[in-house]
C-alpha cells in the first residue's frame, strides 16, 4: 500500500528538482548532445561551484535565508588574489596566500554584513542582495581609484596609461590557473571504484560495530558493488576512460576540500555553536529566552559563510577555463547562481543540507550546460539559452520565496485558528 500523502508531500518538496531533471533530459534529447562531453563539462562545473554553494548552508540553518552577500566574500577573495598576483607569487603558494588574505578580510566584511543584517531582520534575503550591490560599488571604487592611486601596484596589473586595475588579469603565466585542480588529477573511473570500495568498507565496519542493521549493511554493500560493476561495463566505461574521447578526470585536491567542507558543515552542527545556530534558526524569541545572544550567533554564521564563500571563489577562479580573472565582474553573479543552485537541490529558505547543495549544483549546472548547447543546436545561437538560464535562476529563487511565504502564512493562519477554537 503506497501512502499517497507521502508522495504528494515528496512531489511538493522536490517539484523544482524534478522539473530541472526533466528539463535537462529534454534539452539533451532535443539538442542531441554528446553525453561524454556533457559529463566532462559537468564534472568541471561541479568541482568549480560546489564549494561556494556549500558555504550557503550555515546561514540558512541559522534562519537568515539565502546569504546573497557571499558576493562580498568573493570580492575579498579577489582582493587577495590581486595582491598575490601583485607580489608575483605563483602556483599553489599564490592561491594559499590569497586564501590567507581572504580569511581576515572575509571575516571583517562578514562582520559588517552581519551587523547590517541584524538591523533588518526578516528582510535578510533582499538586504543581503542589496548589500552585495552596494559592495560592488565600493569594490569598483577600490579597484579603479584607490588601487594604483593610493595603494601602489605593480604596473603589470594596472591599466596602461591610467590608474586602476586591469579588466582582466592573466592567471596562466604565473601558474595560478589550475593551481589547485592541477595538483592531483584522478581518472573518473578510479574515483568511482574508490567510492564503491569505501561504501563496502563502511558497510562492513559499521555492521561489525553493530551500528547498523544487517539489512541496511547488505543494501549499502550491494549498491556499492552494483555501482562498481556498472562502471566496469565497457559500454559505460568507454564514455569515461578516454576510449571514445578525452578521458574525464577529477581534480583530487579540490574534491578533498569540498568533502572537508561537507564534514565541517556536519560536525559544526554537533557542537554547541551548531546547536545555537539551529535554535536561533527555529525561533529567535525562544533562543533569546534561553539565554542565547541571537545577534552574536547570527554574526558568526554570516562571518563563517563569507570566508568560506571567499575560498570557494578562489577555487572557482583558479579552475576557470579561460585562465583569467575578470576583475570587475567575476563576483557579480556568484550569489544568484549559488542561491538558485541550492534551492534546485530541494533546499528551502530555512532548511538545507550538504546533499541538497551538491545535488542542486549538479542539476543546476546540468541545466546550464544543456540549455546552452540545445539552444545553439536548435536556434543557431546560444543567446536565448543565456536568457533562459537567467530566467530560471531568478524564477527558482522567486518560487522558493513564494513557497516559503505561503508556508509561513499558512502556519500563522492555522495558529490563529487553533487559538480561536481553543
Amino acid at each position, binding site marked *: 500500500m503506497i501512502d499517497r500523502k507521502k508522495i504528494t508531500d515528496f512531489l511538493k518538496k522536490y517539484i523544482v528538482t524534478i522539473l530541472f531533471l526533466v528539463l535537462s533530459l529534454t534539452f539533451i534529447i532535443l539538442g542531441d548532445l554528446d553525453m561524454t562531453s556533457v559529463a566532462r563539462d559537468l564534472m568541471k562545473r561541479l568541482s568549480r561551484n560546489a564549494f561556494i554553494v556549500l558555504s550557503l548552508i550555515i546561514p540558512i540553518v541559522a534562519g537568515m535565508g539565502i546569504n546573497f552577500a557571499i558576493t562580498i566574500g568573493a570580492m575579498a577573495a579577489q582582493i587577495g588574489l590581486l595582491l598575490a598576483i601583485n607580489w608575483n607569487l605563483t602556483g599553489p603558494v599564490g592561491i594559499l596566500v590569497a586564501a590567507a588574505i581572504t580569511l581576515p578580510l572575509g571575516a571583517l566584511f562578514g562582520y559588517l554584513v552581519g551587523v*547590517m543584517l*541584524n*538591523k*533588518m*531582520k*526578516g*528582510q535578510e*534575503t*533582499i*538586504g543581503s*542582495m*542589496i*548589500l552585495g*550591490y*552596494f559592495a*560592488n*560599488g*565600493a569594490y*569598483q*571604487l577600490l579597484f*579603479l*581609484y584607490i588601487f594604483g592611486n593610493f595603494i601602489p601596484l605593480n604596473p603589470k596589473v594596472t591599466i596602461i596609461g*591610467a*590608474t*586602476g586595475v586591469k579588466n582582466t588579469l592573466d592567471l596562466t603565466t604565473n601558474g595560478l590557473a589550475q593551481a589547485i585542480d592541477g595538483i592531483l588529477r584522478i581518472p573518473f573511473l578510479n574515483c568511482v571504484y574508490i567510492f564503491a570500495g569505501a561504501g563496502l568498507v563502511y558497510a562492513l565496519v559499521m555492521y561489525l560495530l553493530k551500528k547498523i542493521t544487517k539489512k541496511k549493511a547488505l543494501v549499502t554493500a550491494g549498491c556499492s558493488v552494483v555501482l562498481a560493476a556498472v562502471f566496469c561495463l565497457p559500454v559505460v566505461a568507454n564514455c569515461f576512460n578516454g576510449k571514445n574521447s578525452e578521458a574525464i578526470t577529477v581534480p583530487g585536491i579540490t574534491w578533498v576540500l569540498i568533502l572537508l567542507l561537507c564534514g565541517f558543515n556536519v560536525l559544526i552542527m554537533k557542537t554547541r555553536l551548531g546547536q545555537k545556530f539551529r535554535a536561533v534558526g527555529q525561533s*529567535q524569541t525562544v533562543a*533569546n529566552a534561553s539565554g542565547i545572544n*541571537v545577534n552574536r550567533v547570527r554574526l558568526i554564521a554570516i562571518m563563517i559563510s563569507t570566508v568560506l564563500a571567499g575560498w570557494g571563489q578562489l577555487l572557482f577562479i583558479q579552475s576557470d577555463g579561460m585562465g583569467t580573472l575578470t576583475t570587475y565582474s567575476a563576483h557579480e553573479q556568484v550569489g544568484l547562481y549559488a542561491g538558485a543552485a541550492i534551492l534546485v537541490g530541494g533546499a528551502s529558505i530555512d532548511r538545507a543540507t550538504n546533499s541538497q547543495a551538491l545535488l542542486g549544483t549538479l542539476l543546476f549546472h546540468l541545466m546550464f550546460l544543456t540549455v546552452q548547447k540545445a539552444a545553439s543546436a536548435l536556434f*543557431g*545561437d546560444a*543567446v*536565448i539559452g543565456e*536568457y*533562459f538560464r*537567467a*530566467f530560471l535562476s*531568478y*524564477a527558482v*529563487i*522567486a518560487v522558493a*520565496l*513564494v513557497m*516559503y*511565504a*505561503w508556508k*509561513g*502564512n499558512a502556519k500563522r493562519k492555522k495558529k490563529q485558528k487553533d487559538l480561536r477554537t481553543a
Partner: protein
Amino acid sequence: MTENKTISAKKTEASRKIVSAVLFVLVAVLLVSSGLGYIVRGMDGTQVILDTMRTDAVLSTATSGLVDSIAAARRLAYSQELRKSKEFRKMGTDAYIEACDKAEAEARDEATALYSDTSGVDRAALEAAIPGIQGIQGRYNAMKEGENEVYAALYTEVVDSIGDWTEFCDANADDDALWSALCAQVETLSDNAQLRPGMIKLVKAMAEKEIAADHAQQAAQLWSSASGAVEDWTAYAEAADEELWSLILEAVPSLAENENAADFKEELLASAKLAASGEAAAEAETETVTAQTQVDYSYIVYSDQLQALEKEVNGAFTSLWDVLISGIPALSELKDKDAAALRERILDVITASEGDFAQQYTKYASCGADKKLTGFTKVKMVVASNAENLLLLGVAALLMAALFAFWKPITGKMGVSRSIILLFFICLMLAAQFYKINMSMLIGNILERVSMYGVLVLAMMPGIQCGISLNMGMTIGCVSGLFALVTSLNFNINGWAGLIFSIVVGIIVAIPLGWGYAILLNRMKGSEMTISTYVGYSFVSLMCMVWMGIPYTNPRVVNLLIGRGLRVTHSLLGNYAYILDELGSFKIWGVTVPTGGILFFLICCGLMWLFSRSKLGISMSAAGSNPRFAEASGINVDHMRILGTVLSTVLAAVGIVVYSQAFGYAQLYTAPRQLGFIAASAILIGGASVKKAKISHVIIGVILFEGVLSMGQQVANEAVSGGGLSEVMRIMISNGIILYALTQSGGEQK
C-alpha cells in the same frame, strides 16, 4: 543598560560639539582670508605687481621658448650623429633614448645659463608694447571664435546632409554649380556667402578623399579575388609586369571585360609584385573614409575684417618682438616654425589679462613669474588669487559646521539620509562652482533628468501607499510600456500618434499583468519586497526570450545582424524622441526648460494627488498603513492592494515611455532590470519610508537624486580623469539609501 546608553549618547554629543567648534574656527579663518584676498585685489600696489608679473611672464616665456628650441635642435643633431656611429648598432632602444635625453638636458642647462639673464631687454619699452597688443588680440580672438562657430555649425550640417560625396565631384569644374548644390542641401548656407570659398574647398577635398577611398576599396576587392587564383605568387618573383597582368586577368575574367580595368592596373600590379616578393601582402585599407564630423578649420577662409585685424595684430606683435630681440639677440636666429610657436605662447600670456584676477595670476605663475615674488608679497598674491576658492570652502565648511552643531533638530525634521544627501547636493554645487562648470547647462541637465525619471519615481508611490512597500516589480510595467513602444515602431506609428499609442497600449497591457502580480503579492503579505524583486527580475528575463522570438518583421526593429528577434537599442531620433520635452520648450538664462516633460510629470502628480484625496484613495492609504483597522472599518484590504499595485504598474508603463522619448532611445532586454532600484532610491531620498509616501516625497526625491547624480557626473568628470566614478557613485548612493530604509523598517527586534 539605559545608563550606558545615556553616557554614550552624552559622549557622542560632546564630541559632536567639539567637531562643530573646530569647524566654526576653520570657517572663520577661511572667510577672513577670503575677505582679505578681495581687499588685496582692490589695492593699487597689487595691480602694479600683477603688471610686473606679466612682463616677467612674457620674458620667461620668450627665454624658455628659445631654450626649448635650442634643446630640441641639439637633440635632433645628436640623435642623427649617434645613428651614424658604430655604437648605435650595439645599444638598445632604451639606451638610445637615454643618451638623447642626456644630450638634451645638457643643452638645456647650457642654454638656460646663457639666456636666462634678461636684463638686456628694455622693460619699459616692453611694458609699453604689451597693452597695444592686448586690445587687438582680444578682439581678434573673439571674432575668430565667432566665425569658427558659424563655420563649425554649418560644417556639421553639411557633412550630415550629404550622403553621397561623389555626387559633388561632377561639379568639380564649376564652383557656382557646386555652391548652389550645397545651398540646396543646407538652406542656411545661402545666408552665409562669406563661407563660400572655404566650403567649396572643403567639399572638393572631401569628395576627392571619398573617391580615392572608393577606388582603393574596389582595387582591394579585385585583388582579393585575384590573389586566390594563384597558389604561390613567389614563383613569379622575376616575372615581368605584362606577365603578372595577364595572370591577374586570367584570375578575374570579369576584369578583362571591364572597360575601367586599366584604372586598377597600377594598384593590382603593385599588390601582385608585393605578393611575388614573398612579403605578406599588406592588407589593403578597405576602410572607407566616412565623412568626418570633426570640424577641420584648416579649410576656413576668414572674412576680410578678420584678416585686416590679423595684420594689425602682426604689426603690434612685431614691435614687441623687436624689443625682445634687441635684448636677446639669439631670438632672431630661431627657425620660422619655432618662432611662430613662440609667438602663440607669448600672445597666450598677454591675452590672459582679459580674464579675472585668479586666471591672470595662475597663468603668469605657470610661466614661472611667481619666482621673483618674495615673502609677504607672495603670500598676499596667493591669497588674493584664491579668494573665490577660499570663499567656497568657507561656505562648505560653514554648512558642515551648522549640520554638526544642529544635528539633532535637522535630522529629526528631515531624517538622516535626506540631510546627508542634501548636504552632498550643496557640496556638489559648490564643487561645480569650484571647477567652473557652466551653471545653466547644469540646471538644464537636472531639469531634463527630472522630466525623464519623474513618472517612474511616481510609480513607486501607490505601491507604498497600498502597503506592498517598495514595488521593485514595477519593471513589469516598464516592460509593458516597452512592448507598446516597440509595437508602435513596428507598425510605423510615428510622431505624436506613436507616443500616445505607446502610452495607451502600455496601460492596456500593464493592467492585467499588474492585476495578476497583485494577486500573487496578496497571497504572501509581509515579504513583498523580496518577492517583488525576484518576480520583477524573472519577468524581465522571461521577456528577453519574448523579445528574441516575437514575430515582428519591420527592419526598423529587427536585429539585422541575426535576422530575427528585436534589437537591444531602438533609436527614436527622427521619430518621437524629445517630442514631449520640446513641446513649449524655451530658453531662460541659458537654461533649456523641457516644458512638456516637466508639465506632464506635474500633471501626473496632480492626478495622483487628486486620487489620494478621493474616498477610494483614502481607503487605499488606510489599507496600507493599518490593514487591521481598515479591515475592521469595512475596507477590503486585498482589493485596495490590487488597486495600488495596478496603479503602480500602469504608471511604470507610462513612465518608461516618457523616459525613452526623453532619452531618445528605447532599450530592451536586461536594460529595465534596475529601474525599480533607481525609482525606489529616489522616492526614499525624498523622505518616503517603505510604509509611507507622499507626492512631495516624489518631487523632492527626484530633484535631489537626479540633481546629485547629474552634478556628481560632471564634477567627477572634471575632478578625476577617466569616467566611471559617477557610475560608482550612483551604485553606492542608490543602494545605500535602500539599505538605510531597510534598516529603519526592520529595526532591532529583540
